[in-house]
């Protein structure tokens, strides 16, 4: 079980004058993710979904609050320590590396998980690539640099997570950049992995198809958890545009930047 208690997060806003240059990004987050459930996290752009995931992974440190994972407080633990405790995160924008090959990255991801005796490491790497629709013969030796397309990089990111030994995994918009024809397969792989691994899965998404698979949906906006609950309960709220009051409008009347002056 993952528990967030009273989480506040402020990040540098590049505007030194305001609040010591920090902007509140997450506010008063109390949230529990239960073992074995499949969660969808959704909400408007800039609402704080990625920040929440990065906070769970240890990439950001909260300005207040506590995080517990399986009974242990992990608030002060590093990214590495959290990874070693079975927490995984697939980046919204996977970084690129000069010189690192796809196989190098996959090997790093696979190293915690002992190979089963009749399957070689290479077999596992190839299998993970194939399951996200990348042919090993085309990709294994390629560099994870800027030459990969956006969709290719996103799929590789999922393949990397498939190889890891994780009990909590957060995918950040796995659908983004992935073509229409491949997305079904990618979602199927994520679901299969979830069921087989018996892990806790959270998918940050704007995609109806993913939301429809979730046990529970968590709605995040303006840095807060606005609503959460079983899919059936949440569905009317999510699909009713009029009720999404937190979608900030940018009408000319509230022109704070002075564009029309």
């Amino acid at each position, binding site marked *: 079980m993952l528990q967030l208690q009273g989480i506040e997060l402020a990040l540098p806003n590049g505007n030194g004058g305001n609040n010591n240059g920090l902007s509140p990004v997450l506010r008063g987050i109390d949230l529990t993710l239960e073992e074995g459930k499949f969660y969808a996290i959704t909400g408007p752009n800039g609402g704080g979904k990625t920040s929440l995931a990065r906070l769970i992974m240890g990439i950001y440190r909260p300005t207040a609050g506590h995080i517990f994972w399986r009974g242990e407080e992990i608030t002060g633990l590093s990214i*590495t320590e959290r990874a070693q405790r079975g927490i995984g995160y697939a980046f919204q924008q996977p*970084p690129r590396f000069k*010189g690192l*090959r796809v196989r190098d990255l996959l090997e790093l991801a696979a190293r915690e998980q002992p190979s089963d005796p009749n399957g070689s490491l290479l077999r596992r790497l190839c299998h993970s690539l194939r399951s996200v629709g990348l042919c090993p013969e085309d990709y294994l030796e390629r560099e994870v640099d800027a030459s990969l397309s956006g969709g290719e990089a996103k799929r590789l990111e999922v393949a990397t997570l498939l190889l890891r030994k994780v009990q909590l995994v957060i995918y950040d918009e796995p659908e983004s950049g992935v073509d229409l024809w491949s997305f079904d397969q990618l979602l199927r792989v994520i679901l299969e992995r979830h069921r087989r691994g018996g892990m806790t899965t959270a998918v940050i998404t704007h995609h109806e198809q993913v939301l429809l698979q979730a046990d529970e949906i968590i709605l995040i906006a303006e840095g807060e958890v606005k609503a959460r609950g079983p899919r059936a309960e949440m569905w009317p709220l999510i699909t009713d545009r009029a009720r999404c009051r937190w979608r900030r409008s940018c009408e000319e009347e509230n022109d704070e930047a002075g564009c029309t002056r």
Partner: protein
Amino acid sequence: MKLDALDKRLLETIADLHGVPAGAFNIRRNGQAVERRSTANIEIRSKEDKPGIDVLIRPGTRNESVHIPVILAASGMTDVVYNTFEIGEDSDVLIVAGCGIHNPGEAEARHDGIHEFFVRRGARVRYVEKHYGEGPGPGARILNPQTIVHVEEGAEMILETVQIRGVDDTQRVTSARVASRGRLFMTERLLTHGTQRAISDVTVELIGEEASAEVISRSVAQDESEQLFRPRLIATAPARGHVACDSIIMDRARISSVPEISARHPEAELTHEAAIGKIAGDQLIKLMTLGLTEKEAIETILRGFLR
């Protein structure tokens, strides 16, 4: 003279050699040739007027290799060697050089290798040179290689140099002239640390029609080490060339990259790029999310970058 365990380890590091190589070879240790083999197509002979060897590769020789490693395992020694390579027309060969220094003492150990290559018409050669230094004492490990290359019409030279750790002072001078339809690919990989200093001066002249050259350096400077790159590309003909210097800077190191391109023909096309920066934070974070420690993540990124 027999090779001992230390020699064998150095040979492995600089030339990936496990035992005696296949094909032609010449092993030089502390200023003397200790073992040599010529083959039907590749003749190695000592120079008569100065220290060093002539390597003569018969025209049309294909898929053969020459290993010419140098080991320096003594303090207070300066080894100067002149090697000349005659790569016959239409041949296609691999030459692996390299220098491993193990300096056991206080005084400096120094190797200055002056290598000249004549890559004859239509020939193709890949030349790999690895440098490595070690030693328990304060004695400096110094390497000053000088490489002179003549790429004749339609010939091709691939020149790869690698120096990862251990060499205290290097001043590398490379000059090449590339004739028409000739091609030169040069890659330089370098990692310095401690108070090491490395300077690399490269001058490539493209003197014939459709000659081309690519000069690429990838380097990492750690601790208080210093690096200076001065690649110059000059075209006096309708030729093409590109220079790229890409460096990662760490700690209190200093790096200067000064690429220069100079055209003396209206149809010449020359480009350059140079970048110096630290390891990207998101790369580190990504690897740490896979369970690597920060130190392991840094090593992984550097190893990839210098591969």
